[in-house]
């Protein structure tokens, strides 16, 4: 793992959590959407906060695609789960949601999971990539 690859993982974390915060703020302003009027979901995209959230999530998507091209899915997902810690912090600071003691314990568990997976290899070693469907047991 190079510095550049860690930078891509950091971009995934920041874009995803800030994007979710923006989406949530926007959807709260749009108001609850009932199943009977589900088509209002498409109009919600016009809310500026929802639109900003979508732009940020596009940034997340680009970084995510890049990471998946050189890492395993089971590496990228836990490694970027720090985003949930950032999301919890941002929802306290920006949205005024309550974060209880149990949520802080959750943050600790997520962080230890991240610490464990990032110490291991980022990709399954493949001797013959063209034959990957034949199995990859080392």
């Amino acid at each position, binding site marked *: 793992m190079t510095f550049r690859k860690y930078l891509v993982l950091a971009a995934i974390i920041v874009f995803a959590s800030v994007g979710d915060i923006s989406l949530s703020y926007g959807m709260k302003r749009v108001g609850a959407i009932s199943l009977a009027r589900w088509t209002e979901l498409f109009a*919600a995209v016009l809310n500026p906060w929802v639109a900003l959230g979508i732009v940020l999530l596009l940034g997340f998507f680009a970084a995510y695609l890049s990471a998946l091209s050189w890492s395993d899915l089971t590496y990228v997902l836990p490694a970027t789960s720090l985003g*949930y810690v950032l999301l919890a912090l941002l929802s306290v600071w920006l949205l005024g949601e309550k974060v209880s003691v149990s949520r802080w314990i959750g943050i600790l568990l997520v962080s230890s999971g991240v610490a464990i997976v990032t110490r291991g290899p980022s990709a399954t070693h493949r001797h013959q990539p063209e034959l990957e469907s034949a199995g990859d047991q080392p």
Partner: protein
Amino acid sequence: MSVLRTWSAIAAIVLSSTAGDVLLSRAMRQIGHVGELWRRQGLRAVLKTIATHPSFLLALFFMAVSFFGLLAVLSWADVSLVVPATASLAYATNALAARLFLHERVDRRRWLSALLVCAGVAVLAT
């Protein structure tokens, strides 16, 4: 809004997002390291290769389903419940699906990490 309705929506989001992630991972693995591809062939070639890959397109469909599901749930439930809850369950389903469909080597370290993150995110949701 009822709790049952929230959790049904969460289950639907988890299933479609797992399908999306696994298909996306498969597409990107077949395409290869995008940084190197960009240097060799340019950005336009990279975008074209990705945008025309069948697994990528199918992944996009599933991700759109989970995205609009998420938007719907966020209109009545807390973001600090919904996003961690969907993610928590998705760590377990993704680890299983990556092993079954992507033949990733999910060793003890990765299972432990996935379980810690899964538990942590579940606690976050309470």
